[in-house]
């Protein structure tokens, strides 16, 4: 059980690095989507008794994080007739190195934090932190709006990972509400991205600096 779990989490962490390293938007979106799907599976591994809601949540997660949002982003990408270069503000190599360092640091930090025995063995906490930092790195280091949305997605994935620690504690209704919120949030972001693309005819946020002191 834990083995499978750790495998998946490790996969998710790997996908972080992939996302940080990918130089083209489609592959970045793909990485985020796959990561979302991987996370969607995790509740099934953690829950002991399988009542319906778990399946629903898992299915919803996979569907939304894996297909809907990426689809939205791809559409925006298609409508915006722009080259698909990521155009990083923070180079790929540094991003990768930072991401890797984040992963290592996350493992160390998680070791420092007091954990319950059943979590001590899992990669959940380190994975969560690593993914979090990866997302932030994308948010800060990429200039294309879509890349930043992907960063935001990955950030949320990290938090979702951490949330799994509490999956027994927090009632699923709360989980569901949170999930819904995040989804709508990303939807709205997607819409705004779309509007910006129409308004400015670009998705390069370096052009979005008319509001300043």
């Amino acid at each position, binding site marked *: 059980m834990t083995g499978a779990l750790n495998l998946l989490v490790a996969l998710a962490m790997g996908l972080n690095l992939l996302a940080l390293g990918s130089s083209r938007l489609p592959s970045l979106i793909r990485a985020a989507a796959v990561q979302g799907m991987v996370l969607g599976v995790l509740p099934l591994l953690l829950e002991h008794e399988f009542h319906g809601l778990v399946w629903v949540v898992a299915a919803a997660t996979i569907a939304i994080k894996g297909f809907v949002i990426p689809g939205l982003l791809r559409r925006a990408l298609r409508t915006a007739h722009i080259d698909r270069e990521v155009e990083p*503000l923070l180079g790929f190599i540094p991003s990768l190195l930072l991401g890797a360092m984040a992963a290592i640091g996350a493992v160390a930090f998680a070791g420092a934090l007091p954990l319950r025995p059943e979590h001590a063995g899992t990669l959940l906490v380190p994975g969560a932190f690593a993914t979090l930092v990866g997302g932030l790195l994308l*948010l*800060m280091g*990429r200039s294309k709006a879509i890349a*930043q949305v992907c960063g935001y997605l990955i950030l949320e994935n990290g938090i979702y990972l951490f949330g799994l620690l509490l999956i027994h504690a927090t009632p699923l209704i709360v989980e569901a509400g949170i999930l819904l919120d995040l989804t709508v949030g990303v939807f709205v972001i997607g819409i705004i991205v779309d509007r910006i693309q129409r308004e400015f005819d670009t998705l390069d*946020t370096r052009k*979005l600096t008319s509001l*300043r*002191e």
Partner: protein
Amino acid sequence: MIPGRLLLLAFLSLIVGLVTARRAPRLWLAATLTGAGAALAAATGVLAGGEVWEWRPTLAVGGEAVHLRLDAVSAFFLALLAVLGGAGGAYSRAYWTDAAHPRSAPSGRAWWNALLAFMGLVLLSANGLHFLIAWELFAVSGYFLITRERHRREVRQAGWLYLAASHAGTLCLFAFFALLAARTGSWELGPMRGRAELAPLFWLALAGFGLKAGLFPLHIWLPSAHANAPSHVSAILSGVAIKMGIYGLVRFSGWLPVPEAAAWTIAALGVVSAVLGVAFALGQHDLKRLLAYHSVENIGIILIGLGFALVAAAHGNPVWAQLAFAGGLLHVWNHGLFKALLFLGAGSVLHATGTREMSKLGGLWRAMPWTAGCFTLGAAAISGLPPLNGFVSEWLVYLGLFDAVGSRSSAAWVAVPAVVLLAMTGALALACFVKVVGVVFLGLPRTETAKHAHESGWFMRVPMLVLASACVAIGLFPMFFWPAVARAAAAWQPAWADAPVPEPLYALSACNITFALLGLLAAALLWRRVRRNGLSRAVTWDCGYAAPSARMQYTAGSFAGIITGWFAWILRPERHAKLPEGNFPAHAHFAEHTPETVLEKIVEPTGRLVMAVSTAVRRLQHGRLQSYILYLLLGLIALALLAFAGGGR
């Protein structure tokens, strides 16, 4: 409770005036004068030996029970407020007419009443919270009175400077009262000299009230505000508003323990303000700016009195403290009277000629004899000349200082320089006002406007005459005013209860009266003699120069040149000169003006520094989202460090 009724009447009539100010100027004037009269009556009642009036209705403002209190100290200032409020109000009827200022005159009348009411409340409120409220409201209404001509840039700048300075002072008072409330557990004010742990608070009071009083390094707002305000406003600002700062210092030095260092500081600042105030005044060409600097000087004289009284209190109340304090207190009245008189006179000049620039005036005594007479009298009074009121108060301060020297205590070490510098201040003031009177009213008109000046109407003349006669009255009959001063002093320092009129005061009054009479008599006789001998007119002796012109008269600048030269180290006068050269010099010019040194050399550079920091910080808001998220992350890290610092203890 007679004072209570009178104060109520005063308050109500001020409200009536406030309501009728826009529509019915006559009614407004009537109401305002009634209010002033009632307030004056109430104050006189308390000063003439009536007991302290207190009022604690079951009414709370801001969660604090209202507590009004009119003791001798408050009454002393209230009387001044009433007199000047009435005089200035009447003056403004003719000076700031609806015809000339359709947009600003009506609201100006309303603000006038507001100012009077709030200053009255400052004097009456015995609760820290209400004191603050009244204080800030009075400051704000002062701002709206100063900026009557808001369409002029320099007026806006002056007003803003005033507002900024006064707000800084108010914040000091925030700290003062909040700390007091935190230490004592309530906003109630009252005598608490016994509590030595409150002593350090006085420094905050000194900063806050000092800013309002305009003592030397904190006077930066004063000149421009007084110069750019309408003259009746300048009169009340300089006559009463800055005295509110003095009131605060007197009030709280009486109620709270004062650290001895603070007492010395006040005395020293007083001396500095006196000398430098008049020095700056000598450098001015703008009539009203000059008068404003003289306010700094006189505040200094008042503070010398107060400061030495405090030093004395630190040395166990020797008798000389009482004289110094009484002198300082009486000078509050005197300065209020003659400075208001001078500002009203300056206002008449401004009204008649449209300029405050002294080098454009001259020979006004022909066109406006009343104004010239009143102004000259005020000038003599502010120069501290007998037989006028300025001399009486300075005389009392001198007596205190001489005794302090005689005491040979440590106070003497400050008293000696104080005496010398006070004497020099007097001589400097005399020089300055000889210059003003000579350049503005005597000699020949320097410009056409000055030539075609006109005497001001009765509405403007009567207030000036009233103030002038008040100056004369205090000068000739000081003993009648002494009881008021003595009661105020007793309210400040209970140990001095009912001090009798000092004997010398009678002698002085006798001398003043005889001197005044003899002076008038001699003048009359001499004039008769001249008439008898027959007099003929001729041009002034021009040393044989062919074409003398009015513009050849000695100017204010060159008149003060010698003295401003002595003070150049602080005045930093700016000279723009093109001296004549060659055998046949073409045109040459010479201009000199004295900047507000403290403002331009200290405050403004500091302000520029702050603005530089602000600009640097504002650059961080450059619109790049990525960095914004970085800031967020940095904030997170910083807070984490702060939280886990010392193991999160």
